[in-house]
């Protein structure tokens, strides 16, 4: 329809049915751009997470350097052609360390979220059942957990279990249990008394069938969205603990550890701190943006 005269195009556009007819290709492109522009944050965050996934899977394809081996004579080189992110005090390539570090930071973050979601869902569903005693017990447990400040909780866990990646994940994960548990408990109570659950009993379905076909799927509906936002928070919390020396120990190229190491040289060299810091910040923002977009979409649906 590119040969449509202007008057024809005008009639098409003012089609009373409200549907826009095929217009000039320029308009179509403009519309695509408008849509893309509207989703720019989401798209940028999505692109960043794709890149991150690639980094996690194949860091060795993106850098030739080893994150742990350094040339002590080439310490604290500013970013240049051979070392795009420069080198740290021990002459290790900052780019390689940042790329490999994603594995540690993200896997601890995901692990901690998995602990929060897993136990939160289990306890939340148990608390949403008929038993008042069980519900009270679980709710008070949530209160106890969330009354501890995060860092204090982590210190407590690390004191008992010792330092290390797994223990940091446990510390952060336990602190997040009430967040998911409370949502799941409320959803369970709502769904348990919902008309569609009663209706399923009227069909003659068993308790187990009602649980797995109606209750559980509806209760878990909101979890992926909340978890996506929460992963960002968790990654930040894990890195903070690492920064304090409670997590993985040097020379592990974890972002929090790298930030801690860069502190001593920050006055003379900015690059060992800024690059892992930027990676951490962008990752947290990307997860939050995606999570919030999903949440908006999810809530509009209801």
């Amino acid at each position, binding site marked *: 329809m590119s040969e449509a005269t202007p008057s024809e195009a005008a009639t098409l556009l003012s089609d009373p049915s409200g549907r826009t007819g095929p217009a000039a290709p320029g308009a179509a492109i403009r519309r695509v751009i408008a849509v893309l522009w509207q989703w720019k944050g989401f798209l940028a965050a999505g692109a960043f997470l794709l890149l991150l996934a690639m980094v996690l899977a194949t860091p060795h394809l993106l850098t030739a350097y080893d994150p742990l081996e350094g040339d002590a004579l080439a310490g604290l080189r500013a970013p240049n052609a051979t070392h795009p992110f420069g080198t740290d005090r021990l002459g290790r390539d900052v780019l390689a360390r940042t790329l490999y570090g994603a594995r540690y930071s993200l896997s601890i973050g995901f692990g901690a979220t998995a602990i929060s979601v897993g136990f939160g869902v289990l306890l939340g569903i148990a608390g949403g059942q008929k038993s008042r005693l069980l519900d009270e017990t679980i709710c008070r447990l949530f209160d106890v957990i969330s009354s501890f400040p995060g860092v204090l909780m982590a210190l407590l866990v690390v004191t008992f279990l010792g330092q290390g990646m797994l223990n940091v994940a446990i510390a952060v994960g336990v602190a997040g249990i009430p967040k998911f548990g409370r949502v799941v408990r409320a959803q369970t109570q709502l769904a348990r008394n919902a008309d569609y659950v*009663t209706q399923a009993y009227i*069909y*003659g379905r068993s308790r187990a069938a009602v649980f797995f076909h109606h209750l559980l799927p509806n209760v878990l509906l909101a979890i992926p969205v909340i978890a996506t936002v929460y992963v960002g928070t968790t990654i930040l919390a894990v890195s903070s603990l690492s920064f304090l020396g409670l997590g993985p120990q040097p020379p592990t190229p974890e972002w929090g550890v790298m930030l801690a190491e860069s502190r001593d040289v920050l006055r003379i060299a900015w690059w060992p701190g800024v690059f892992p810091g930027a990676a951490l910040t962008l990752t947290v923002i990307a997860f939050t943006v995606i999570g919030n977009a999903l949440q908006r979409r999810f809530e509009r649906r209801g």
Partner: protein
Amino acid sequence: MSCPIPIRSSSRSTPATAPLVAIEGLTIRFRADGPHRPAVQDMDLVIHPGECVALVGESGSGKSVTARSLLNLVGPGAAVTARRFEIDGADARNFGPADWQRLRGTFAGLVMQDALVSLDPLRTIGREVGEVVRHHRLLRTPAEIRDRVIRTLDRVGMPDPDVRASQYAHQLSGGLRQRALIAAAIAGGPRLIIADEPTTALDASVQKQVLEVLRQRVGEGAGLLLISHDLAVVADLADRVLVMRDGRVLDAGPTGGVLARPRHAYTRQLIAAVPSADSRGSRLSSSRLETAGGPTGNSVIVRDPLPPRPPIGIDTVLEARGLTKVYRYPGRAGDAGRLAALADVSFSIRSGEVLGLVGESGSGKSTCAKILLGLVEPDAGWVTLLGQPWSGISEKTRRPLRRSLQYIPQDPLSSFDPRYRVADIIGENLLSLPRSRRQDRIVALLDRVGLDAGYLKRPPLSLSGGQRQRVAVARALAARPALIVCDEPVSALDISIQAQVIDLIAELQSELETALLFISHDIGLVHHLADRVLVLNGGRVVEQGPVEKVFLTPTQDYTRTLLAARPGPLTDRLGPPSPARRE
């Protein structure tokens, strides 16, 4: 294109009264709907003091939006235009926010439909009612305000007004809440009352009281804009009526005239579709009103008969004996903590029979339905289904029998799993069928209820109220039940849609010879559909028997009260309009 509104020729108004509201060419557009679909189009509306004007129409017809525009409460995103928009003699098109604010509460009071959400849960009824007086500084001292509040509550028939004034909304019953809302609307002494479906959620007897309060205010000289989909209420109260559909006024004029000789086919259909004793055995949706010739000719409703019903079977499908259920409230001792929801209720349903269950809210209808559905165990008494014990057994023993007893709820949407589509919803009741044959059966069931295969993949949210109820009917039929419990299945639907769904239920019932327990507060509807009727009050059976006998020659006072409370049958008013009607 609107019908001209006849100039008021009533003898009741004094000649010098200026109209409270005079609107011409009102058009309301919502930006979200686009420019081509106005919510209200070219509407004329005049309300005089001492006059009740009714807006009638189905949901989405634009009646509520029109009413809200009188107080500039249509909301953002709406464009209101009019050739003439005079409120209390002043051109309201130039009003600023302060002008509107002055009007609200003092000139015009708004009574909304849902009293529970319209009252602030954190404020006492007294504060709520006194709000308008305080805000507009109509009275100064707390004692004066309190006095006005108590008197207003008294006016709307609130028992113990000084006690109620210090109570909160949740401590009041639905009827009292609605009266509190009316009190709040009239406390400022407004000359115009806008009542948006003020009695829709109420029982017949409470509805009567609420309408009486409004009628009294009109008698005192206030103007009333009544919005309702209930033609019987409108016929009872309104001087003039405007019938709306899709934002247009289809019919307008004095109530008697419009109801007797409606000009528009939609109004005719609306009047003819009201179920009553006269409509028994006929189709509601195809009923039409025909006017005998001449300007004074009376109208008659012409109805098509439903297919003849097979005789009621002799075997009992369900029998209930001595059902008793007492709810206990913790923390209260003795009788104060006990509520007898059901006391010694006995009845039986034979195959292919329709048993109507009527009663006001709190009469035990829902408890009875829950016991029959096997969701609640009775404290005493027993139920048998198809000759086998149905109460006092474990869920496991009950499960195989469940298919024989199905349910059509009042609100089908909440009974659908939100993740499911139409095919999943019906398919869940067909799990015994192999997968390959399930799809064909679902399509056949949809066809049965008048929906085509295109609906299979539709999410229930995208269906209209009538379509949702059709899906619920198809789902119940999927189990080939012997008995279906219908709990107010059409009370949330517009009259025209209600007529279609009732016709569908009646047709399928006689074709499949399924027994129905039909729970409803609408006596006309029960009279239309049921073979026998059971009247419940306070958990006890007041009266039961053949529907004609109970409704035409009731033996109990309570049944008589219930029958008297409903507005009289519409057909009584279908004669030519006479000035004598307004004594």
